[in-house]
């Protein structure tokens, strides 16, 4: 990054809102520069010109009604203009076209779930088609979060108990970052990852990439999220291989180890087929049904020694994906 890039006020713009936004932003910027230099330049000039000199007295202050009225009324014209431009921009931000592609977005501490029209899901990263209006229908499962895509110049809070919407139309293929913009806390302790390194999670880590793909690749993407991925040679993943991939894709690995280390949640090693002690003192056999229920209703049967803190994956995993995860856990016996 060179020094001229560092001084640029705005990031690259990749949506239909970009050009209008950037024009208005730079208009405000240069207007402010001119007003600032004008006012402060005048003040500095006065400070130098009328500095204290022996024998020279200040002139008593007079009145100048015309000037006072002028600088009270003149800004009003400017303000009305600015309000108008800002408001029309806002109206387009809040008026998605009726043919927009809906993506259902669920926010929770500290990840995002995206549900596509065909029922497929992606976690943390989202894929959208180029040159097509996309509408996010958002909700939150816990506290207030906020979807912020700087390159699109859009932001909207995801609030528990209500739906909020945000729309955009991407004009550039590639990857751009989105963030959570509403403060939502952090984990008390860093999570020890499978490789032993510590990872802090929280508000600041609750973001990901928007992948913008050409419309020709869109249908293929939608299909791919429903079926098991394939190896480079075209051979489809086995259920256990897919489960291993989902283990990291779905962030299971932030709480469950596969090497026997207890983390925030119980380890998956040697789990399948065991009698597991529960928090209520009873024991249960860790079979397919127990694992399925633990993923969909995590707090129904909490394993002894762990807190009821896991979010439900109801609706964010397909049956085939659940099967794949169970198949993977079976291999860890």
């Amino acid at each position, binding site marked *: 990054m060179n020094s001229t890039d560092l001084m640029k*006020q705005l990031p690259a713009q990749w949506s239909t809102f970009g050009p209008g936004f950037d024009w208005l932003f730079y208009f405000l910027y240069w207007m402010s520069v001119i007003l600032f230099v004008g006012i*402060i330049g005048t003040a500095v000039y006065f400070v130098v010109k009328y500095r204290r000199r022996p024998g020279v007295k200040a002139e008593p202050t007079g009145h100048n009604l015309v000037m006072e009225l002028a600088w009270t009324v003149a800004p009003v014209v400017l303000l009305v203009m600015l309000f108008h431009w800002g408001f029309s921009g806002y109206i*387009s931000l809040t008026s998605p076209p009726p043919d927009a592609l809906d993506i259902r977005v669920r926010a929770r501490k500290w990840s995002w779930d995206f549900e596509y029209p065909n029922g497929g899901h992606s976690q943390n990263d989202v894929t959208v088609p180029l040159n097509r209006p996309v509408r996010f229908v958002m909700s939150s499962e816990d506290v207030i979060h906020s979807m912020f895509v700087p390159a699109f110049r859009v932001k909207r809070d995801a609030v528990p108990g209500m739906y909020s919407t945000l729309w955009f139309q991407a004009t550039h293929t590639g990857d751009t970052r989105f963030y959570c913009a509403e403060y939502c806390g952090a984990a008390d302790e860093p999570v020890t990852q499978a490789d032993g390194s510590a990872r802090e999670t929280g508000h600041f880590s609750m973001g990901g990439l928007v992948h913008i793909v050409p419309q020709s690749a869109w249908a293929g993407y939608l299909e791919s999220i429903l079926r098991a991925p394939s190896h480079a040679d075209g051979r489809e993943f086995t259920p256990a291989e897919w489960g291993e991939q989902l283990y990291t894709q779905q962030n299971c690995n932030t709480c469950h180890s596969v090497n026997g280390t207890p983390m925030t949640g119980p380890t998956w090693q040697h789990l399948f087929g065991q009698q597991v002690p529960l928090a209520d003192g009873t024991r249960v056999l860790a079979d397919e049904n127990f694992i399925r229920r633990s993923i969909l209703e995590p707090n129904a049967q909490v394993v002894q020694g762990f807190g009821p803190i896991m979010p439900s994956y109801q609706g964010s995993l397909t049956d085939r994906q659940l099967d794949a995860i169970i198949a993977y856990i079976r291999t860890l016996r």
Partner: protein
Amino acid sequence: MATEVANAPSHHEEPDPNENYLKAGRGIWSWMTTLDHKRIGVMYLVAVILAFFMGGMFALLIRLELLTPGRTIMGAATYNRVFTLHGAIMVFLFIIPSIPAALGNFVLPIMLGAKDVAFPRLNLMSFYVYVVGAVFCLFSIVSGAIDTGWTFYTPYSTTSSSSVVSMTLGVFILGFSSILTGLNFIVTIHKLRAPGMHWRRLPLFIWGMYATSIMQVLATPVLAITLALLAMEKLLGLGIFDASLGGDPVLFQHFFWFYSHPAVYIMIVPGMAVVSELFATFSRRAVFGYFAIAMSSLGLALLGFLVWGHHMFTSGQSEFATMVFSGLTMLVAIPSGVKTFNWTATLYKGSIWLTTPMLYALAFLVQFAIGGLTGLFLGVLSIDIHLHDTYFVVAHFHYVMMGGTVMGFVGGLLYWWPKITGKLYNETAAKVSFGFVFAGFNAVFIAQFIMGSRGMPRRYYDYVPEFRPYHAFSTYGSWILAVGFFILAGVLIQSLRKGAKAPPNPWGSAGFEWNTASPPIFSNFAETPVITRGPYDYHEATEEELFDGFPEDFKKTES
């Protein structure tokens, strides 16, 4: 009859009314039970400076953590507590009481020609209420601190396991201190003006305090109610804000900002009030457009109540409400602009004396201009959507709160320092400290404007490498700023220990508070003054009134 001004309250040990207030009564007990507005002002001053020091330390920790991406000195959970404490301490323990309760308490009655505020006992009580509130806040810090941000947004705050209740209780109590001070000032300004001090002659500092007090009295109860509801929801499970209990999380934001937006003006209007005095004294002429400045303070107080929704443009409030709040927010630019233009015009054909307080006033002008103009960006709806909750907002409000109010506070502190302590301070060293403060402050926050508009969200513990140069620059600036304040502390301590004795009117000001000894006598004036001119009428003031040496020397120059 106005000569009956605030009878010095009956006291077990009646001090000599003509004795220096610092010497009228000795020992810690005479301070703790004092009803003298000057001593209460000094106690507030000590308290707010301690709070500023504490909040400043938290600020340095934030900047140090953000020097590099990832962990620098602390974990994420600690970082969240540190930035919350920085905000909460600076807002509730420092900036809100800083100018009104500390400087205002000291100067306001003297400017009016009164012996004390209208309710001296209430004044002392408000100080102790402040102390009790501060104790609860400190308790919250040692019992695990609070990680919600100073805004306490629900449902995060109702579900956070940090010590939210003791902090909100502390803030709840601090609010009453603020209300009592405001009430006291309103009554004092209405009832205890010396003969001849009619409304058109009120110093602009008093006008600013008057506007501030109205806001304190009307807005603070809403904060109290909001925090009480928050605590009840947390403790009793009342469904006010919790969506799963039928409440509305966004309702909290409406309640909170209904107080906290006026609170922004509770913070900035006193800064403007001080600066108006500084411009007049050090230009040796009346403030241009006196009436416009006075009315613009009241205008800001009124508008302050009508724009709270501009904190919530992305929250999901209705588009119609958003439109109305954006329009009303634009109007704030008018009184702000009027003040800025009038201060600049005051300099015209003045006789400008660049003392350290005047440098702070000019820094206020520069930084408030930047804070105000960037406020326009945030008032324009489509632009705010991108900038909301980014570092651009952080930089904007620090330019107003710190670049404005703190400059006004330090400028006012140095300006009235000889009056409060009876000691002069070293001007050269103070100017050096000003240089560091000015350069450091601007370095910290200019970098934050750029990273903010480029998309860096606020309250982030970690960031992508792209933002590293801006964060590093901002952190280096914070060190320069800290050096400036440490030099300033040294200047003031040196003045207290070894400073030369101050004459009654070291700046040669025409303001009425300089008509009494430095430090003032216990009853402020030997006899009730009769006001015959405005506070800035340099052309009507006598040579003796404007003389900047000791009175006995003036008589020598006469003979």
